[in-house]
């Protein structure tokens, strides 16, 4: 089934939902569907249960970080230069806020087809990082959504047990984010050298001598 067919079928049976086809230029040809988080659980349940698709197996769930970018565009502006109006090129910079994305790869064990790829986006990367959990639909998402919460910081509403899974409970940051910076805690190294030695020295100057 092509993404176009799935899109029209889902939109016909779930009123008000929005789907967008994300085309993939790679030779793999695995196009995906971006769904709106408000209807995500309804869409997922439909995909799992509706007859021609029966996507009963959620194979892979993962997060992708898309940090905000600085987009610079050249704009022609009319300006008064030495009393004469002239067209001058100016570079205008805009900052996008970026978002976190969650990707679901679905297959059907019954019909043996797939993958159908779903994507969801958070609104930004700082405050509004809530997405609905699809664990009630596919149990296989449980650990993988916990992992995304742990490593990317997406908060899944409706997840039965949302805790850190790979990092320890007291850990604070989300290490898979692209702007993650390692904390400045000097790890013991028996023969500290180069950058390690430099980091250790800087650490000492901040913390004072041991």
């Amino acid at each position, binding site marked *: 089934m092509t993404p176009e067919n799935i899109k029209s079928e889902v939109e016909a049976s779930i009123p008000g939902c929005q789907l967008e086809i994300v085309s993939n230029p790679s*030779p*793999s040809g695995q196009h995906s569907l971006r769904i709106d988080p408000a209807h995500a659980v309804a869409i997922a349940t439909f995909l799992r249960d509706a007859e021609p698709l029966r996507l009963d197996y959620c194979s892979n769930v*993962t997060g*992708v970080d898309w940090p905000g970018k600085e987009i610079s565009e050249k704009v022609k502006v009319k300006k008064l230069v030495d009393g004469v109006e002239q067209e001058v090129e100016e570079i205008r910079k805009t900052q996008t806020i970026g978002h976190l994305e969650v990707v679901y790869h679905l297959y059907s064990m019954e019909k043996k087809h797939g993958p159908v790829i779903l994507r969801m986006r958070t609104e930004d990367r700082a405050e509004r990082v809530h997405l609905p959990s699809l664990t009630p639909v596919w149990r*296989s998402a449980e*650990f993988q959504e916990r992992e995304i919460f742990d490593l990317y910081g997406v908060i899944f509403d409706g997840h039965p047990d949302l805790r*850190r*899974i790979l990092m320890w409970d007291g850990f604070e940051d989300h*290490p898979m984010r692209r702007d993650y910076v390692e904390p400045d805690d000097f790890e013991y190294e028996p023969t500290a050298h180069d950058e390690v030695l430099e980091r250790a020295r800087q650490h000492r100057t901040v913390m004072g001598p041991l």
Partner: protein
Amino acid sequence: MSTATEPVRILPQSPANSGSDSGEGQLLEVSMGPQHPSTHGVFRMDVVLDGERVVRLKPVFGYLHRNHEKIAEHETYLGSMPYTDRLDYICSLTNNWAYALAVEKLAGIQVPERAEYIRIITAEMTRFLNHAALIGFLTQDMGASGTPLMYAFRERETILDLFESLTGARMMCNYMRFGGCRVDLPAGWLDQAKKFAATLPRFLEEFERLLATNEILMARTQGVGVLSKEFAVNAGVTGPVLRASGVNYDVRKVDKYGIYDRFAFKVPLGEHGDTYDRYMIRLLEMHESLKILNQALQDIPEGPIVDPKTKIRGFRPKPGEAYGRIEAPKGELGFYLISDGTANPYRYRVRSSCMMNLTVLEDLCIGHNVADVVVILGSIDIVMGEVDR
């Protein structure tokens, strides 16, 4: 991974958990692991017990977490290949293949026929050694100290010798490349492999006879940890654990990746979904692997082993994404890659088969004795290198 609690403590009494003064009905929380011989690495289970019975079980892992995915995002595509060996360190060649397959999908690379045959030969050998070793470990967990494991390891060593003469390393093979394999088979390797494959039916017969109708094996595994068909599918369980529950789903048959459609082999299925079926499926799959291995050793053609047009250095796939998966010995192993056109992947994700199979551990163990937890965990077949990544 959560911080370690004290190994054993008695939970405070709740109205539901109040018993007589004799202590009956009190729940006991036990931390099994992380340093426990049956956990196959550093893995912990928070088990709540009512007497001997398991009431709750939470798997806790991450002790071997090294953020393999983050490392790979700072590495070139080829540079991640040796790291994939370290995921499931018993089956490095299938890990290589899964990663190579994902990159080949991403960049649209073709693989020459001889390389496909070599991949299948090495992958089926890997499956054979993994299943043999697993049955050894499983019986070891049940108290058969050593004998079946040593039988399995004897064959495993021979396979590892073959791997060593082919790739230069016993376990960390780093052998597959995008569009083929790294080196051609050395002179005489095929004859050695054929000779070895001819001895395997005898080993299988001996191994089966050693354990078949063994009373302890039957008593400890039959009816223990039953996994239902519908739940297995919903929980994303794959590989032999899934097929032991009677779901006919083998990525080799479904995706027909590589050239698996040329080989005649069957997919064994279980009936009850218990631990015994999971043990039996592995034994039957070894027979099927042997069939594929014999056909591949017979039919392997001459020719190049890597697509000459593939760029090894300066490899930059066009922007896009791909998800490639194979039937690894432990289940579906997938790699999800996003390229932004540079030399490093923008996103690199490992879909670990062992970690997904752990999802069902609690559901399998509840209601069983604490000693059965060890056996059920053994039959799921986990390797912490892949669970934690």
